[in-house]
């Protein structure tokens, strides 16, 4: 049994030690983030690295990041979820409508006073339900993820408009709800803006849970296996429909969570919230090293990707670059990221 062929040793000799090329490829994105931070610090005369600004950047990207975490699971399995922005909007208006101060003006459910948790659960539930429908369309009706979620993108946004009726946002939300988007953890009452904003806490929490799911559970292995080779995964006993359903439901749920945080931060549920955020989330995921070819990706990569987007946006803001140009820059970044993905993960002939 142990007649190891002699070539094994020669193979091992060649690859012994750290493969620096692979190391650089893997962690390049962190280097790029640090370079950007330093460059912007110099350009803005240090303003961009003030703690208040840094915390602000992270808070700004927490919605992108939370959605990007769901998107990472989706893209690893060779899918895509275009509906997250619309689901965010729909969840935001549903949640907001249920947490309005019942005595105010322009109240959806005048006179009905429900606990805040009901609004939160409804928002999350609507997101999860929309994601579940995506999953059903993809796994049972065999629709391509692009098509199914493109349809849902329109449907969810339409429902958000219908739900708001005259198009005016639901405002006058209860302070307990707004606290989710505006509050701080470890806040020192004597110093305003101290501590960690709650959206950031939730972003970190989501990222940690997702990292555990992806790296330390059977479910996570199955996600990679499906992306690596769906047929082989099925033959290996993986129920593809089940995993697909879970992944898209999770993506919808996270979009719902982002919707709640966003409406709580702005203090109103607007039906147009989240438009275009799917592109930001996809960009964060791809520049974080998740491959459009499936089977490759990590949560920490997506987190860094989201931070990079935030740093760039914030830097351009501080430098006074027009927001229109920022959109152009964003498009350039996503194309660049995909070119890098193509190069890096080109299948061997």
């Amino acid at each position, binding site marked *: 049994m142990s007649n190891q062929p002699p070539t094994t040793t020669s193979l091992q000799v060649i690859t012994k030690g750290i493969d620096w090329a692979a190391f650089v490829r893997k962690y390049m994105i962190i280097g790029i983030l640090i370079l950007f931070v330093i460059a912007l610090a110099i350009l803005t005369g240090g303003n961009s690295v003030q703690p208040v600004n840094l915390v602000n950047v992270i808070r700004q990207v927490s919605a992108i990041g939370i959605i990007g975490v769901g998107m990472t699971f989706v893209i690893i399995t060779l899918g895509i979820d275009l509906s997250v922005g619309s689901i965010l909007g729909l969840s935001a208006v549903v949640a907001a409508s249920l947490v309005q101060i019942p005595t105010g003006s322009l109240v959806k459910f005048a006179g009905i006073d429900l606990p805040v948790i009901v609004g939160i659960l409804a928002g999350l539930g609507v997101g999860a339900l929309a994601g579940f429908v995506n999953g059903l369309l993809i796994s049972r009706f065999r629709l391509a993820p692009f098509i199914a979620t493109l349809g849902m993108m329109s449907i969810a946004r339409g429902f958000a408009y219908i739900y708001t009726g005259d198009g005016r946002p639901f405002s006058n939300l209860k302070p307990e709800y707004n606290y989710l988007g505006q509050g701080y953890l470890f806040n020192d009452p004597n110093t305003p803006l101290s501590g960690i904003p709650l959206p950031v806490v939730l972003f970190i929490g989501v990222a940690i849970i997702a990292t555990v799911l992806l790296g330390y559970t059977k479910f996570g292995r199955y996600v990679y296996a499906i992306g690596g080779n769906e047929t082989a995964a099925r*033959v290996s006993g993986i129920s593809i429909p089940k995993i697909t359903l879970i992944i898209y439901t999770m993506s919808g749920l996270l979009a719902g969570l982002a919707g709640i945080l966003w409406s709580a931060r702005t203090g109103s549920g607007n039906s147009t919230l989240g438009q275009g955020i799917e592109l930001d989330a996809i960009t964060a995921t791809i520049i974080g090293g998740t491959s459009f070819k499936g089977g490759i990706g990590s949560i920490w990569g997506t987190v860094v990707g989201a931070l990079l987007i935030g740093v760039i946006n914030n830097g351009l803001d501080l430098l006074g670059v027009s927001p229109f140009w920022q959109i152009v820059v964003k498009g350039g970044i996503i194309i660049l990221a995909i070119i890098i993905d193509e190069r890096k993960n080109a299948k061997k002939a």
Partner: protein
Amino acid sequence: MGEYIVEMHGITKRFPGVLALNDVQFKLRPGTVHSLMGENGAGKSTLMKILAGVYVLDEGQITIEGVPTSITSPRDGLVHGISMIHQELAFIPELTAAENIFLNRELRNKVGLVSKKHMVEETQKVFDRWNININPASRMKDLSVAQAQMVEIAKAIAFGSKIIIMDEPTSAITEREVARLHDMIRQLRAAGTAIIYITHKMDEVFAISDEITVFRDGTWVATEPASKMDRNSLISLMVGRELTQLFPKSEAKIGEVILEVEHLNRGNHVKDVSFSVRRGEILGFAGLMGSGRTEVLETVFGIHAAESGTIKVNGKEVKIREPHQAIAAGLGLLTEDRKKTGIMGVLSVRDNMSVAALPKFTIGGFLRKRLIEKECEDQRQSLALKTPSLNQLIQNLSGGNQQKVLLSRWLLTDPDILIIDEPTRGIDVGAKSEIHRLMSELAKQGKAIIMVSSEMPEILGMSDRVVVMCDGRLVGEISRADATQENIMELATRFSEEIAVA
């Protein structure tokens, strides 16, 4: 035989972590068939891909017709008259044979539009000249693998290739089609074309080659006229050691019936098939390509849903409509097509190995990483897997080592019944005999093994009992003692004869 048409000297090629070719030489004479032999990972395909321009060499020199030449793209290869017929044929299924041949150099009519008629006529001329009996207007997707291969060869010669590389051309075609291919090769040779032939099949090598070059572990070992070699000397050059036994079949105690399949039906591929297998038994499924062997076993395993029929494991009927139900019932299936349905290319050896057994390796959904590491390491050792580490991506391994990983994937699930479809297709002699030895060992442990194989020596060498399929039906059963190449072939072609009579 004059001077060389191709000379390659000092060729070195590195891939991340692997020295694929180390100072290799190769010389080809015009109008000859030159076979390349070697275990998988020996470097044959890499060298040929360098010649055809698919890969670019790191060091070394290529001389074509005496002129030092740089080949850096497949286009360069074509310009120098080099065509490579890949193992997986590359054509556009929706286009016709003629359109595929003229792809990218379409013939046009006076107005400048593509003329299908003209292309069909020209293709017919080429087909006539080389006795190829295919309608140029038929779509590629309607052709058999062997026919598609002929079209690719016609494409190469139609545009003046002087060197045609064939990478395992016979791995997916029937014996009759192999004979036809070899006739074609002889015609080409007579017309002065040089053929480079890569294969693992010994009998073919001696039937067709003028010269043989042997590689081992990325180095050149020998080049000899085929007439000066025989099977044993060739094998020992390839593996660098004498193989004690190619089919190490040892007698296992045959126990009670463990799997019974009755009246299984699915479409045209599976017609009223019944069979059973016992513990300790290796049951061989023989038959021609397309006879339904793979389909029967994929239906048993739940990859395709059966239309009717029953499956019993240990005497109890089981419902299998999805592979996970088959796995739960104690079955495992090592599929035929390693690349399409076996490996997860961008995943590590460890992930590929452990994927089917993960339910066993988790507590409450969480991975028991240390246990997985230990079990995978054990498999790596006992199967003598050649990989720098379990973290290596499986796509970087040679075919034989990939096959070992996939075998481990099923061994880790500890199945009672292991179905292996083409256990050694396209893998080298050394890995082949290790896999055969392992199959014997598993049978000894009381597992039932069902093996589909297109290689007659494998069927005869490994099976305790052979069942033969033809056109979706199970047409006969032969015991190990009675099985011969002749009576298996007789059964495998039985249905076609009946049709011929009718």
